[in-house]
């Protein structure tokens, strides 16, 4: 018997049910599909590419371990992955100092060269991400998380609610509070000027950096 049909486009739902049944290739396909989004979310929360790589891997490992817990209701698994990534990133940001001390005792492996490495570009991206995060420093941790999901990652309110396991109403009210704080801090009439905005954001970043 030979099979020569064209590759069907498989839904997250289909891939997920196969992954839950233990089929690692289906899980690998979900990784291919969503790794970039999760990696960008982690980067935009941490401004650190190395940490984001680790958080990406750990997000999918947690998803695999918890695959029997999820009853996929929508068509995409992405909000759920965002939820795991948000939890891990929060934990990462809180425990950063403690873990640095702990892992100093482990023997480091030699660094693996990456031909795609563009050190100046990386540093510039990280600097710009830190600046943007600095502008959010006046928001609470939960508001920052939601801001990144809805504003930067462009999730719908419903998807963000699923990701963070909160009611849609809470999404709206948190975003509303976030906007009020940003308005207050950024003196909105002047924001039309890009230069002034950059200056304001830079000032806020310095403020956030000190806290």
């Amino acid at each position, binding site marked *: 018997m030979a099979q020569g049909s064209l590759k069907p486009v498989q839904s997250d739902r289909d891939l997920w049910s196969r992954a839950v049944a233990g089929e690692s290739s*289906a899980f*690998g396909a979900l990784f291919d599909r969503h*790794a970039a989004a999760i990696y960008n979310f982690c980067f935009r929360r941490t401004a650190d590419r190395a940490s984001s790589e680790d958080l990406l*891997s750990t997000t999918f490992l947690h998803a695999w*371990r918890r695959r029997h817990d999820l009853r996929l209701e929508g068509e995409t698994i992405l909000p759920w992955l965002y939820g795991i990534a948000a939890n891990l990133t929060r*934990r990462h940001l809180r425990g950063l100092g403690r873990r640095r001390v702990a892992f100093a005792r482990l023997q480091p492996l030699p660094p693996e060269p990456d031909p795609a490495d563009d050190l100046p570009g990386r540093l510039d991206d990280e600097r710009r991400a830190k600046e*943007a995060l600095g502008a959010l420093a006046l928001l609470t941790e939960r508001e920052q998380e939601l801001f990144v999901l809805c*504003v930067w990652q462009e999730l719908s309110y419903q998807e963000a609610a699923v990701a963070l396991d909160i009611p849609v109403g809470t999404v*709206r009210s948190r975003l509303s509070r976030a906007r009020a704080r940003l308005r207050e801090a950024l003196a909105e009439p002047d924001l039309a000027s890009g230069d002034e905005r950059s200056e304001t*954001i830079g000032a806020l970043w310095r403020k956030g950096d000190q806290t």
Partner: protein
Amino acid sequence: MDEPVSLEELRAVVPPPPEQRLAPGQLASLRQALLHDIAGSAPRRRRRRRRALALVLVPVALAAAALVYSVTANRSAEQLGNEVTCFQKASLDAGAAGGPFSGQDLASFCRAQWRSGTIAPPPAGPAPPRWVACEGDKRGVDVFPSDDQDLCRRLGLNPVPSAYYEAVARYSALESDLGGRFPEKSCASAREARATTRRALDAHGYTDWTLRSTGFGELTPCALVPDLDPVNGVATIRGGVRPELIAAVAKGLEQASHCGPESALLADVRAALGAAGFGDWRVRVDHPLTERWPCVAGFNEVPAEKTIVLVGHASR
């Protein structure tokens, strides 16, 4: 009432940092590590295909193809179950990987295995478009990249019967149903498990199957999801550890975020075990934790030694 929020307005106030792209090599490396860890962290899944038999079949197939044919010739579609193994080449000694197949399309299934790198990482070029499916050596189905209609016979295997897709769908439904009847957080005794399994078999039309139970004891009083042997029509119910033990280990791992240093990781798991009344169980890691792989991916329980073994290389 909150004022409606314009996301565009917020995006203009604080623009997103630049989009980041992982280099293809980095992404492939992360994916490969992930799949490797997944393979090493599926302690209570029983889906790994045995390759030793396939390897042994090579000389057997060449030297005594007729004998092999006689061994496999009379298997029905029902007896093939849902295990599928995809091979890297049209040869039984080629690299192979597989898993449970739910009955849609064998070629798509194997192309997905190919692209995922589980057959031979990294994938050797694009996934082949055409595949040939044969009855497996002992159970299941072996699938080879080829358009040779005579391949199965040349390998000493039977072609897959036409009723296979229908049969595998029914079998997969049984397996899925059984999984739902044995939730991981419950503890069914051997007797309860036999009754539950029999009901599931009957509901899916497998009324002539035999039930067996084994491995139940003081430390393993809770039934695991039954193993199914479609070749012989036998469902085997094995005893496993209490779900509270599993939950305690998971809690300890969660406490440590699954990560070292080893002494702290072990301490967290031991503390969770102690708090749950399993303080007499030992815990160890089966490999040294490193800066590159500072975390574990899962664990296996060894009831005979009252030991939890933390396994799998994971990054933070």
